[in-house]
């Protein structure tokens, strides 16, 4: 008797949980679905406000339009290149610095760690950083999107901590076999850190793809714009007179809703395509919380 009552309560509870999560998921997925299917709808259908989720006459017009000039493709190409080059620089710089710092016996290591930790809690801010980038002559160059953020202190500390976990015996025996420090790093430490490095590659790469502020600050030439800055120009500013900057550098007519949606889809596609691979790593590798030296 009690058992049936209990399982009845269980069923009600389970139903509530599944219904709640199911609705949250649907609500969370709706915007993405709407944007994707809207990009295939005709201008007329969207303008008549009849469009909900399935376009009645699916068309590629929006995609034809955005690829009719090379503005979007150029920006995508540039962003892909900055992402690849930037991520390589990030990984090389981070690993090169993390490895010596992971060696506890290294004289002077403590002071370097103080300096790195300090940058975690304090920075010069937007304007002084801009002045430094300008002083070293990087304005309007793609290096400005790569060098000022070459190492994330947060990632550096995490990589260093990961390297420290590698058994000292392995390092010692490699040294006895005649390996120098460069060899130990490339033949022992890095291969053993593959899963961790995959996670950091992902974080760095997504960061480059999504970067907006640095491109806004350091690239004045609109021909050099990366995808996020171009996206702002097409999707957010081109609303027809709501922003005070709407007149800034606009050379084209106000794009239709389906064109805006198509631009959002294209510029997000690389992230979505990589998402299944990324998922494998980030769930294992959540590294929030303590980053003690």
């Amino acid at each position, binding site marked *: 008797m009690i058992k049936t009552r209990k399982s009845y309560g269980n069923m009600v509870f389970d139903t509530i949980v*599944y219904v709640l999560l199911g609705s949250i998921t649907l609500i969370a997925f709706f*915007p993405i679905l709407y944007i994707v299917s809207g990009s295939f709808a005709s201008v007329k259908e969207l303008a008549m406000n009849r469009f909900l989720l399935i376009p009645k006459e699916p068309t590629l017009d929006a995609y034809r339009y955005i690829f009719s000039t090379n503005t979007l493709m150029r920006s995508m190409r540039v962003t892909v290149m900055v992402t690849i080059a930037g991520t390589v620089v990030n990984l090389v710089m981070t690993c090169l610095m993390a490895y010596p710092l992971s060696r506890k016996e290294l004289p002077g290591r403590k002071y370097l760690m103080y300096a790195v930790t300090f940058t975690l809690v304090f920075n010069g801010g937007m304007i*002084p950083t801009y002045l430094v980038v300008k002083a070293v002559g990087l304005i309007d160059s793609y290096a400005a999107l790569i060098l000022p953020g070459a190492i994330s202190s947060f990632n550096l500390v995490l990589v260093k901590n990961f390297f420290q976990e590698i058994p000292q015996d392995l390092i010692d025996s490699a040294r006895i076999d005649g390996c120098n420090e*460069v060899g130990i790093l490339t033949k022992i430490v890095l291969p053993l850190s593959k899963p961790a490095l995959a996670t950091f590659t992902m974080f760095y790469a997504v960061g480059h793809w*999504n970067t907006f502020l640095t491109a806004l600050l350091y690239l004045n030439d609109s021909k050099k714009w990366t995808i*996020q800055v171009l996206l702002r120009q097409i999707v957010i500013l081109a609303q027809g007179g709501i922003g005070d900057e709407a007149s800034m550098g606009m050379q084209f007519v106000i794009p239709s809703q389906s064109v805006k949606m198509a631009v959002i889809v294209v510029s997000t596609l690389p992230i979505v395509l990589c998402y299944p691979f990324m998922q494998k790593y980030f769930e294992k590798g959540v590294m929030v919380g303590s980053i003690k030296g």
Partner: protein
Amino acid sequence: MKGQKNNWNRIMSYKWLYIMLIPGMLYYAVFRFGPMFGLIAAFKNYQPFLGFFDSEWVGLKYFIRFFTDKSFMRLLGNTLTLSFLNLAFFFPMPILIALLLNEVKCSWFKRTVQSVVYLPHFLSWVVIVGISYTLFTTDGGIITEGLKRLGFGQINFLASPGWFRPMAVMQNIWKETGWGSIIFLAALAGVNVEMYEAAKLDGANRFQQILYITLPAIKTTIITMLILRLGHVMESGFDQMYNMQNAMNRDVSDVFDTYVYRMGLVNGQLSYSTAVGLFKSLAGLILVLSADKLSKKVGEEGIL
């Protein structure tokens, strides 16, 4: 003498390690500590044509100007209001999702939910704001249009001061709830299953189990995350604020970062905006250090 030589030998034996450090140290010197020296500009009347050293010292002039300007209270108010709205409405969401996911036994359902709710974290703020613009535009956005047909009238979500904060918090909830739940799920994975068995024998129902076992088990994680957030109440996120900002909502959407950008790089008041930025960085530093202390006081590891 001999000691010195030994020291030298010791350092030389690490030669390769030091060589490896060179690129990183150069990077930190130029791009991390360079700007910190550049903060001196806040105490000078920095003129690009005079250069850094020849510009005249003005002491605290720009700080006084900022603190007596009416923008100061507005920026501080906007920043803190947004942070506390996020604490009140966003912060509980990841915990809620984690608690719900923890009750799901069906693994394909769990994976599907997780895949969907984690995804927005990887989208840029420009994309998030762009999606909001398409959904909420008065020019036929599906949500504006739907509400109009339901008799709510024409609501201007994007260009009215009243809707700016709710929109910003909603975007944040959509973007970060799933991602934020991962840390709580990790904490939940460590809860001892026997506790639930014992509770079941004592006649506790599922809701009571959550209340008396699950929640206490992740209490420390919740407190740590809360303290961590408190340490960052001065941060509003430039990308989101800047992209959501327009002439109609500037009174409520202007925060320190957008103000520094506008004053410094659009209006060219480099010294003044450096002073504003320095104030924000210092306030942030104090908050983070206090949060770290607090976190250690309640028996946690601390952030640093």
